């Protein structure tokens, strides 16, 4: 797990984005115990306060929760993660279509291009 940062954007927002992707892709699974703030900050090479802020944000979105004295865990609610995945995928798809629209291609053509690409 390596994070690279753009100094133009608040760092905690970038950490938050990475964390969301880790949750969606199952790097951290539902119900799994998360590393401590300190462990996270040394792995990601960010300031522990920044890490803390990103985790607090995830917690306010109910994506993770704190079990007193025991640390932080990923939500047990698989639906919530699925919803996050869905939102993320929709955003990615939208931005693809927007880009294609800019060069004059409609939805049907855009899909054809998608199908033509080998994964």
């Amino acid at each position, binding site marked *: 797990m390596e994070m690279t*940062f753009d*100094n*133009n*954007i*608040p*760092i*905690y*927002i970038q950490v938050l984005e990475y964390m969301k992707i880790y949750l969606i892709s199952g790097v951290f699974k539902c119900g799994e115990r998360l590393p401590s703030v300190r462990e996270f*900050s*040394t792995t990601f*090479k*960010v*300031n*522990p*306060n*920044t890490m803390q*802020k990103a985790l607090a944000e995830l917690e306010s979105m109910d994506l993770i929760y704190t079990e007193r004295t025991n640390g932080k865990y990923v939500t047990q609610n698989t639906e919530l993660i699925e919803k996050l995945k869905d939102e993320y995928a929709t955003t990615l798809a939208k931005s693809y279509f927007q880009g294609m629209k800019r060069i004059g291609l409609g939805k049907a053509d855009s899909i054809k291009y998608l199908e033509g690409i080998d994964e």
Partner: protein
Amino acid sequence: MSKDNNNLLEVKNLKKSFDKKEVLKDVSFSIPNGKIIGLLGKNGAGKTTLIKLINDLLTPTSGEILVNGNKIGVESKKVISYLPERTYLNKQMKVTEVLNYFEDFYENFDKEKAEKLLKDLDLDITQKLSKMSKGMQEKVQLVLVMSRKADLYILDEPLGGVDPATRDYILDTILSNFNENASVIISTHLISDIERILDEVIFIDKGKIVLQSDCDQLRKKENGSIDEIFRRMFKC
């Protein structure tokens, strides 16, 4: 938060003149525990003078500096670990000798920790400092400073003259060795290299504090990197 006594460092109306030249003009700011703070300013802005005053190496013309609520002196020297801009170590010493020297001098120096960090660097500690490259010497210095269990770490230009890979190593060392109750002040003009690890920045210009802010809030507000905001503000 209640008033002053919660701050690790409190600087009040600090002034310093050398002869007739006013280097610091009424500087006031405070620093809480658990933060990494960038002290940023152009060459000659007053960064090093401010740092030397906090370390009791210069006497203020007027004003006050409090560390943990007490005036600076013997007690504050115990809790501040300072990396000066230029080395004060005798380069004829071997690293092992420097380690012993630090152990004798500072009761909060963790020699084992220093040895471990030096080992991670693949350094031959039986070597004399004078036989090492400049970058290596800077790493040794930083290891010594970060191996003291202090409340406040003050690093004056820790990145000057080292390559980008070494800079990353230095930043990682700072991050992984500072404990939650301590704070770190890093003075530098190499902002873009360091800004990702900072909580707050203090901009100093012509002997005055012109800005103190949380980094992420500043990025959001001004829509740019700290480096860019700094350049915009102090365009020559």
